[in-house]
Every structure is written in structure tokens, then in C-alpha cells.
């Protein structure tokens, strides 16, 4: 980890490569064309990305998308079939897990049950040969920082789920790793605690300033905590961007379907103008939408269209100053869930279902089944993707997962 321990020639070589291709900002991790093949299938397919120092980077994807394999390669438990992993300018190929400046918070935390909290946190320091008094002092310091001062003598079983979570973090952070890898650590917690830990994890990350690589299948975890998110599907990165970008400007149909909820239609392009496309959907609706792929969509081309429930305006009377799209619907079901209540409405013309958020205004207080409803949205909020995009098939399969 320290440069002084390396042979001189290596130091100068890495210094050069850092200067030439890894200019500022400081890059903690660079993955270059990583592939991982297992017998018969490709788990990770030519993935490249860089993570700047001190950022919270999430890899979001459905189960089986290869994100765990990718994380295990960063930790050193799996070896890439090809490509390079560079941490702070040094290639990690052939470096054993115990020699990497990387620590991992495991899915079920893996706190050693045969040791108490202090011994658990001190384990890594003992491996470094740190003197006993210093271990005691550093363990106490890190316990205080995660808000569990004085619990060093407790056994693992005496702590609650959230406290164990913090101990698992402390056990890694006490070693000042360059990268902290987190393998869905919140998955085992109940909903309330998970919501709480999301915020706490983000705060701890900011406080320690360590670079976090977080993998999850829960889009809400990724959106709340991350500086950057990579959406992964079938071994590939579909899109890397800020939570804002992924939500508002998804670049593929898969991302649009996976991040957030959407109403979706299949259709063909009817006509196109400078501002929008006119889409004829398979159930006979005519919707104006905005193309998202760089490819220009011409008439007759098959497209998939996404409209988020929260982007749809709801009114009980038709709006005179009509936006690009307006449809008359009948209320079919109201899924009451407080602030997150939804209306499932049936569009009169086509009989198709559209999900919208129930506005919490006086106007809709007494809304009931079979009431008339008018839905409006602008062309910019109807995202169109051409269907020859391969990702669409898999996006359909994982639609149920995307319900956050």
C-alpha cells in the first residue's frame, strides 16, 4: 500500500502512467475492459469505469446481472478473465485479497462470532502488527465515530441489526482502506431500519471521506446515497450517471424501466417533427413523445414508450390549455398508501391501464371508482426508445423487480 515498500522501478512506472492517463481528479479505482467468464456464460462483459476519490459509487442491477462477481473481483476473491483493475495507479492483477487496500462489508456482515466487538474491529489492526495500546486506542476512536462508544466488550449477538451494521463498517474503516466495498449490506434489515441506515451510511461515508462502492438491487438505496450510479444488466453497464441523470435522462429502455416505476407502451412511429414524435401504440392510442436514443427514429419504426406515474398531471375536468397529451380515463382502482397512493385508471378509448400518483389535494379527497379523470403529460415526459435496442427484452423480464 505504501509506495516506499515497492521496488523503485515499479514506483516510477506507475507514477508515469498516473500522470499520463489518470489526470485529476484523483482516481481511486479504474477498471479497464473487465471480463469474467464462467463455464458457459459471461458474468461480466467488458466493463470499464473510474471512481474519483471520496465518492459514493453504486452498482445497481437485478439479481444475476454480474454485480456481485464484479465486486468480488475488486476484493480479489475472483480474478478477471481479461482486463485490468487499477487502484490508486497500481494494477491489482495477481494481488491477493489480503494485500489489497480494499475492504468489504459482506452481505450478512460476517462479524466473527468467536470474538467480541473490540476483537472484531482489532482483527485487521493485529494483522498489520499495530502495537496493542494503539489498537485499543484506535478501536475506541472508531467506535466513537460510528456512535457506539463503550460497546467494545459486547458480544456480536448482543447488538441490534443496525448496530452490527455499524460495527461491520467500523471494522473496515479502522484500516483506512482506499476503497470500501459493500455487498447489499442493508438487505437483511427490516424496512424502517433500512430507511434509517441509508441516511446514516451516507453520513458516515461523508464523514470518513472513504470511497464507497456499493452494490444493490434496490433502486431507492442507490438513488438516495450515491454520487454516481452504474446500472448493470447482463454483465454490462447500461448507463453510468448521477441519480438525477438516471431518473430524468435514462439512455436505454432498461434503465428507464429499472430506475423508478413507469407506464409503458409498445408502438410504432407515426410521424416525427422537430419537437416530438407521434407514436401510434399497439392498443390504438396516439401519444406524443421525445426520442431518447441517439438514433433518429423514422416513421414506421417500432418503439417503446415510458411515462412515469409521478410525471402525469391529473384533473377532474378537461384542461383547456392542453399539453401535448391528454386522455380521458375512468378510475379503476385506488391503491391507498398515504403519500404514495396510486390510481389505476382505464383509458376510455383503448381500455389500457395507466398508473398515476393520487394528488393529495382537496379536489381528489372523495375520488372513487368509476369517476371520470383527465390525464395530461408533455411530450418531453414520454420517453421513447427504439425497440431494436437489445436491452428491451431483458427489461420486460425484470419489470416486476423495478417496483420500488
Amino acid at each position, binding site marked *: 500500500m505504501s509506495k516506499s515498500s515497492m521496488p523503485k522501478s515499479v514506483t516510477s512506472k506507475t507514477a508515469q502512467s498516473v500522470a499520463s492517463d489518470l489526470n485529476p481528479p484523483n482516481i481511486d479505482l479504474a477498471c479497464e475492459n473487465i471480463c469474467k467468464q464462467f463455464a458457459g456464460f459471461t458474468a461480466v462483459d467488458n466493463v470499464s469505469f473510474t471512481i474519483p476519490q471520496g465518492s459514493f459509487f453504486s452498482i445497481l442491477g437485478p439479481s444475476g446481472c454480474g454485480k456481485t462477481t464484479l465486486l468480488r473481483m475488486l476484493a*480479489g476473491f475472483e480474478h478477471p478473465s481479461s482486463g485490468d483493475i487499477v487502484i490508486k495507479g497500481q494494477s491489482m492483477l495477481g494481488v491477493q485479497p*489480503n494485500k489489497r487496500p*480494499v475492504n468489504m462489508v459482506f452481505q450478512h456482515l*460476517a462479524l*466473527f462470532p*468467536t470474538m467480541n466487538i473490540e476483537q472484531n474491529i482489532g*482483527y485487521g489492526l493485529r494483522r498489520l502488527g499495530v502495537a496493542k495500546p494503539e489498537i485499543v486506542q484506535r478501536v475506541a476512536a472508531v467506535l466513537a465515530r460510528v456512535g457506539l462508544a463503550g460497546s467494545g466488550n459486547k458480544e456480536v449477538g448482543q447488538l441490534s441489526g443496525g448496530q452490527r451494521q455499524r460495527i461491520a463498517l467500523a471494522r473496515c474503516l479502522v484500516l483506512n482502506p482506499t476503497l470500501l466495498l459493500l455487498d447489499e449490506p442493508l438487505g437483511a434489515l427490516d424496512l424502517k431500519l433500512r430507511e434509517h441506515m441509508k441516511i446514516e451510511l451516507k453520513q458516515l461515508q461523508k464523514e470518513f471521506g472513504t470511497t464507497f462502492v456499493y452494490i444493490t438491487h434496490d433502486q431507492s438505496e442507490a438513488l438516495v446515497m450515491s454520487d454516481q450510479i452504474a446500472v448493470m444488466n447482463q454483465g454490462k453497464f447500461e448507463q453510468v450517471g448521477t441519480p438525477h441523470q438516471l431518473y430524468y435522462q435514462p439512455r436505454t429502455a432498461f434503465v428507464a424501466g429499472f430506475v423508478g416505476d413507469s407506464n409503458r407502451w409498445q408502438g410504432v412511429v407515426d410521424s416525427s417533427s422537430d419537437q416530438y414524435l407521434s407514436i401510434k401504440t399497439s392498443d390504438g392510442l396516439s401519444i406524443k413523445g421525445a426520442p431518447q436514443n441517439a438514433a433518429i427514429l423514422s416513421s414506421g419504426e417500432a418503439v417503446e414508450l415510458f411515462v412515469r406515474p409521478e410525471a402525469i398531471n391529473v384533473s377532474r375536468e378537461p384542461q383547456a390549455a392542453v399539453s401535448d397529451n391528454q386522455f380521458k380515463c375512468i378510475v379503476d382502482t385506488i391503491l391507498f398508501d398515504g403519500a404514495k397512493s396510486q390510481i389505476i385508471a382505464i383509458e376510455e378509448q383503448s381500455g389500457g391501464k395507466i398508473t398515476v400518483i393520487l394528488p393529495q389535494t382537496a379536489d381528489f379527497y372523495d375520488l372513487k371508482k368509476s369517476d371520470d379523470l383527465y390525464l395530461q403529460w408533455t411530450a418531453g415526459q414520454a420517453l421513447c426508445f427504439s425497440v431494436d435496442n437489445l436491452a428491451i427484452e431483458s427489461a420486460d423480464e425484470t419489470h416486476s423487480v423495478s417496483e420500488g
Partner: protein
Amino acid sequence: MSAVTVAKKIRLGLWLLLAPLFLWLVLLIILPHFELLAFSLIDPEDQGFTFEFYLEFFQEPLYWRTFLRTAVMSILATILTLVIAFPVAFYIAKMLRGRSKGIVFAMCLIPFWVSELVRTFGWMILLRESGVISNFLQWSGLASGPVELLYTDATIMLGLVYTSMLFMVVPLVSTLDSLDDSYIEAGYDLGGSNWDVMREIIIPHAVPGIVSGCIIVFMLSLGNYLTPVLLGGKDSLWFTEQIYTQFITRFNWEQGSAFGLLLLLLSSLIVWAGLKATGQSFTKTMG
């Protein structure tokens, strides 16, 4: 039916369920030992109370030295078995997956389908003066004459370790199996070497299996009769052999009973000391 009769029925059922265990304990364990105790403490001539058979054990060097030798050899056999069985168990529990795991485990088990006597004769066929190994050494020119490999302490040790292997492997495999791989990975991830992970994570986790395996193997070795007698011959000097001699050859049941109880007492003492020394408790190991 009143609540009282229901309760009575339940109690009767409980007693019936416990009956086999109870009978087994009383008839085969407790009664014989009381009988042994009575034999060993009563002078057969005047039917009076006496300690002479116990004193005999401590006064006659052959007896207590034989016991000491038996205990030391058994402890050694236990340690050797542990050292050999641990890597085997680790390999089965942690390195192998699926089908091959079952096959290798079964391969450990198969030799035990044959009776101990036959297995011991198998060793004798290999090791005796006119046996397979001796013949091979002569044929290959490594030895000029017949080589006797039987009737040494090393041969006894070999037989004891071989006989005990399975009883160490089984508890070790089951405890190591219960160790989640993520603990081992976490051990490496936090900077541990192979040795660190073994010493700080795997062995502490396996302690209950190690202790129960050691207790079983130690007791089996201490109480073994066939292996030391057949492989060690006349010089084997195993304590069970002394008991056999007292009961069968000398027809001195009083002395034999005293030896039997002393064996039970002293072996329990050694196990207790072993548990104390390693900071384990019997209930923790078995529970």
C-alpha cells in the same frame, strides 16, 4: 375426561417413551458399575470392607505404569488423529462441492463397514515378517532379510490412529461445514494470511468439533483392546489387557473390578483436565 386423567395419560406416555433409555442406563451402565464397585470393595474371604485392591494398583509399579503408558499413548494417538483428520475434514467441508464431497466422505466411511478385527488382521497381513511390505522390501533389495514391522509401539499407534480417524473426521466436518465461507473471506479481506485465518477464525469456530472428536478418540483408544493386543503383541502393555488378565486368566474379579473402576475414574479425570486446560465446558461442546 377430566384434566387430571389427561395429565396422567401424558405422564404415562412420557414414562413409556423414556423406558428404553431408562432400562438401558440402569441395566447396562449403572447396575454393572455398582456390581463392580461392590466386588472391588469387599474382601471375598471375610466379606468385610477393604481397600486392598485399590492399594494394589498403586503399590505394584507394573499396574500404574501400564496405566500411565496407556494414557500417554492414548493422548498421543488423539493428537496425531486430530493433526491428520483436520486437513482431511477441512478439505471435505470447505474445498469440495456437491457430488465429490459426498464421495470422499463416503470413502472415509467405507473401511468402517468391515469389522475392527478384520481390519486389524489386514494390517497384520501387511506388516508381519512374511507380510506384503517385508516381501516387497526384500524383493526390491532394500532389505536383506525378513523385516518384522509388528509388535512395536509405532505399530500400536498406527492401528489406534487408523481406528479412530472416522470418529474425528465426522464431528470436524460437521462443525467446519457450519462455518460460512464469508467468515473465511472476511478474514482474508481484512489482511489475514492463511495462518491468521486458520488460527483466528477457523480453529476457534471448530473448537466444539475438535473437543468432542478428541473426547471420543481418547476414550476409544484408552478402552481399546483388540488393536494393542493384536498389533502390539505380548509387549503391548495396554491397561485393558490387565483388566482382561485379572478377570479371565487370574479369575481375580475383585482386582479386575477395581481396575475397571480406576480406568473409568482416571479417564474421566483426564478428560476433565483437558476441558479445563482448553477452557471448554462439556455442555458447550455437546450442545
